[in-house]
């Protein structure tokens, strides 16, 4: 029930924030009767209603159906562990976005492949280095050489 109520609260916050921004959208002289804020306001109100209904359901449904909260089955990671591990993968992604304009596509990709493999439990080895370099070279050949995508280059050159 706590998880469902948290979900409802987050949805309600999203609806409120979205409504607040939607209500500040300027109306152009070219606007139609509905206007640019028309449907966004409706969406915000619908989401808020659904969030409240979800909260009510979280409270009343166990009484109606006499069901207990589902508990995590054995072997499933705890929420804290899941979020910590996911945070690590997210950090590697953020690292890519920050480093690639400086180090260029090829070098950053080597770092990302190596970092992800190490994060997932691989040990530092010549094999890891070879796979990271070969993988980055394959992506570079495919995207830069074959498809002609202008990927970021070293020091932005």
């Amino acid at each position, binding site marked *: 029930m706590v998880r469902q109520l948290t979900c409802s609260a987050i949805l309600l916050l999203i609806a409120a924030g979205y409504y607040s921004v939607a209500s500040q959208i300027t109306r152009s002289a070219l606007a139609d009767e509905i206007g640019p804020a028309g449907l966004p306001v409706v969406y915000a109100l619908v989401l808020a209603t659904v969030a409240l209904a979800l909260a009510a359901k979280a409270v009343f449904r166990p009484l109606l159906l006499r069901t207990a909260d589902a508990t995590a089955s054995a072997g499933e990671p705890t929420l804290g562990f899941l979020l910590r591990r996911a945070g690590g993968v997210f950090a590697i*992604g953020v690292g890519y976005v920050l480093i690639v304009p400086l180090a260029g596509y090829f070098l950053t990709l080597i770092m990302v492949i190596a970092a992800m493999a190490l994060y997932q439990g691989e040990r530092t080895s010549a094999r890891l280095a070879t796979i990271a370099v070969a993988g980055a070279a394959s992506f570079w050949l495919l995207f830069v050489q074959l498809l002609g995508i202008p990927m970021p280059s070293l020091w932005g050159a």
Partner: protein
Amino acid sequence: MESLLLGLTLLVTTPLVLAAVGGVSWGVLGGALPGISPSITMALVLPLTYGMEPGSAIVLLAATYVGAEYGGSIPAILINTPGTNAAAATVLDGYAMQRQGRGGEALGISLYSGVLGGLFGLTMLVVLTEPLARVALAFTPMAYFALGILGLSIIASLSGESLLKGLASGVLGLMVATVGSDPVSGVPRFVFGRPELLDGIAPILIMVGLFAVSELYQQASAAEWRKTAGAETRLRFPDGALRRRLIKPQILGATIGTLEGVMPGAGGTIASFMSYNEARRWSRHKEEFGHGSPEGVAAPETANNTVAATALVPVLSFGIPGSNSAAILLGGLLVHGLIPGPRLFEENADVVVALYTGLFVANLSLLFIGLLILPVCLWLVNRPKAYLMAFIYALIFSGVYSIDHSLFDVALVLVVGVAGVFMRLAGLPMLPAVLGVVLGYMIESNYRRSLVLSGGDHGIFIEDAIALGLLSTAMLFIAGSLTTRAYLFVRRRRRQSERAADG
């Protein structure tokens, strides 16, 4: 008869066959890379066509389109990443099959259904271009709005256990679709001063973030994947019993794909979602959907590949490009001095016959190219988890950057992935959100255009016969889903009461 003879002659013409096979190979590669859309794949080969004779040039472009539309399902099944928008519906059961060690079977079904869908679509294109073109012309903004609502109506059955959560997810998707310039007045909305958001958020970014990136985040804490046995990593075509079971979803997919394909702008995404929904509605194995149903792969794949052929109807008949890919094909026609329209079929019949023949060869070669590359793809995804995750992450960065050469898009996908993790934790289904993102702009822009036409009178949606028909169908879908849910709820409650009474 003359056209048939010409077609048969062209079948053994080397340049045309090479263009068809080459186009499909290139298209499958492009479609399989997330971020490289069918239109980008086609745009990359467009310059090559300048020096070619018109028939082969158009075949090369059309075959690339066919290959790319199919290619999108490969990463959808193998790594939970739809390569194209239309492959989003394949993710659900395709990836579930892959996680059960049935990836080879899922790919076999997608290839088999895709080829059947492509050939059926081609038959419709050849036989029914004229009447289908009339359907395309009859579509007004009101009808497009109603089509969008019909698409959204399937949220009720895509919602899984909770309709409210499905609704919440769908509304979140609609909200994302409002980001960017207002479709009527051009006023920027929800862009927070970022010029990258003025054109809106591409649905593929949301799909890659929600499906692929959130899966990577979640897999980081999961145990090592079970070792897949050798036999499970082979491409497997459906056997006789399964082929019979797939007939119904394939017919549904082909029918929906034919109708959706001829409507400019409707595209394969709506067709594949609707086919998935209808396949589940009419299936004897509803409980398998979402957990690795072969029918859940066959229906959207058939629809998606049927659309690839029937989407050419408005392009050839009126020169109306319903999608970016169709616009590039139109560009290819114009470059060679071919003006689409009824006269194209009279004055350049040889090119039209070459196109039909090329598409036939392209669909057949899809089968052989699939046989060659899919085992390699299966081998790749059965590498150790640490390396596979690293390569998927690298592929996502490369593919997403390729869309607009923007690191902002890469950052956005990482953030959408975080949202995807929270959606998973909260039990919010992802497909309704994707549907909302895909349909949001179409619904809003056509709703408001319709009201501009009627001077604000909502009665226009009832006066338009097609809109009325589509809206009525949507209401029936919603009523059907709600009735089924209510029945299941009452039955569950009654059983609990009986159990409690039994002590």
